[in-house]
């Protein structure tokens, strides 16, 4: 299941770092963060609890970049 979320991230480098970290979250098959359009595309693993995975992604990204935010 592929979903696109609007996000808030301040700098391109932070976006890249957050992307690297969030890719490793369990339940994420693929993930990309576009700094320019402030969008995050998440491909969830089949059958994953999306809300839970998303929360995990947010937590992971915040560890890398404090101002990271996902609009839900």
């Amino acid at each position, binding site marked *: 299941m592929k979903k696109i979320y609007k996000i808030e991230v301040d*700098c*391109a*480098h932070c976006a890249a770092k957050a992307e690297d970290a969030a890719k490793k979250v369990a339940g994420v098959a693929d993930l*990309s963060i*576009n*700094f*320019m*359009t402030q969008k995050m595309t998440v491909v969830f693993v089949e059958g994953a609890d999306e809300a839970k995975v998303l929360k995990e992604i947010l937590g992971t990204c915040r*560890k890398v970049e404090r*101002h990271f935010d996902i609009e839900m």
Partner: protein
Amino acid sequence: MKKRHKIMLARIITAAAGTLLLNVLPLEGILRLVLFTALYLLIGYDILWEALLGLWNRRFLDENFLMAIATVGAFALAVYVKSGDYNEAVAVMLFYQTGELFQSIAVGKSRKNIAELMDIRPDSANVLRGGEVIEVDPAEVAVGEIIVVRPGEKVPLDGVVTEGESTLDTSALTGESVPREIAAGGAVISGCVNLTGLLHIRTEKEFGESTVSRILELVENASSRKSRSEKFISRFARVYTPAVCGAALALAVIPPLCGLGEWHEWFYRALTFLVISCPCALVISIPLTFFAGIGCASREGVLVKGSNYLEALAEVKIVALDKTGTLTRGSFEVTEIIENRVEKEKLLEFAAHAEASSTHPIAKSIVASFGGEIDHSRVTNLREEGGLGVTCEIDGVPVAVGNRKLIADAPEYSGASTAVYVSIDSEFAGILLVADAIKEESREAIAELGKIGTQKCVMLTGDGEAIAEAVSRSLGISEYRASLLPADKLGEVEALLSDKKKVAFVGDGINDAPVLARADVGIAMGAMGSDAAIEAADIVLMKDDPRDVAKAIAISRKCISIVKQNIIFSLAVKFGCLALVAAGLANMWIGIFADVGVMVIAVLNAIRAMRR
């Protein structure tokens, strides 16, 4: 400004004012220390907190950690040597926060500008169902439904106008600022803005297949293809910071152990090293430059699929161009009329009437060139002479239009165009020369490529030698390859690639998708609607204008030169300052310039890439 930015600004102003005040007031001893500590915490508490969090999350050597160590160290040093000068620690934090704030606002603003340029996604579609207009998600509209687009709205899906007349603003797609007229029967591409009249459009594609989705997909994936410069910077940043921190440690310990001076002196130099060790200027400005360059290009109707292609485009030395559809219009046109005893207008009028019912492309081009109303009642006794042409009577006068075999007394024409002979009243009346017309912009396009330093332009065509020679001469192209089958074009481009110079191939995407993919940079022209071309190309020119090739190269070169300026400038200042600090010739103030000052300058420079 966001709320977060406003709070930060207030903190910065308060801290700056406080620092000035404390320096004027005659404060001594413990009270001075307490007040300065309060100021320091006011301006830097979040950095200290972040540094702790960073350690907790095992992010060593991130910029917060470095800043925290450097300033706490400077503070501690001032206490240790009893100098009472706490200004440095507060000032370093102050400038660092100011730089970060500025950077955040500037980057956010230019990012927003770029994003607005590309904001072509329609939020909703007004679909006509059961006589009522309902607002739905564009993705829910099926092919063949009628959508209503009011003035000021974006066209959400590709389709054909069934009702209404209007003008369309295509500038978000093509960069073309002149609005396009549209009426019933005309095809409309999603992403255009309806300007004047109400339009009813029958959709021809689903949202996911519509032009706007394809373009968005292309643009939104652009950041995943990183350029060599960006990769270099992220590798560099991984090495640079630990290396400088290591050097700082060595600086703090080794010289005083060797008896080369006081401990606190070397400790101070080491702290300054830490301030300089943040690679912020580079990691922020380089990706920003590429974003700005890609944004600038898309404003001009040039879509770049990734910063790696922008980089490759800047290095292009050889440009191979397909002829048909790229340099020429790809459709036949009467280019010249050689008359004999009748006026040109009459010759064209008669030829057009004789050819009016034919479906041959050349016949159609004659009718199109005539442009006037065809009165079929004037034409009688029409006969197709297989392989030769047509004969008929127009207003009772016998007319023949076709090749030379049909008209015995015609003189032989030898040239690069196709000759259509006309006889009126059984006598040779003239020749219409029909050719694939060269675009008006093509000559200028080639000249501009030469001007910006392209070493060689090569024209590739499936046409015969004579036509290829004539076209390339009239355009000023130095080399051409004629009589190529589609597969041969690939071979020719591969031969050019073997020179080890960057080769760009420009084509219209019809039959040349493999060549677009094989060249270092594949540029598809006028690609609105051509899926294969958008798929295969690295760069898509939305307008059907060959001059955009030179424009795209110019934009990419400007972008790359800014990237190079920023890399060289930042590194030169940083290494220069490191050397000065190590030699004891510079203090922490210089260090903060090497960090924050350089970052601000680099970001400002990066934003330049947004303008042409």
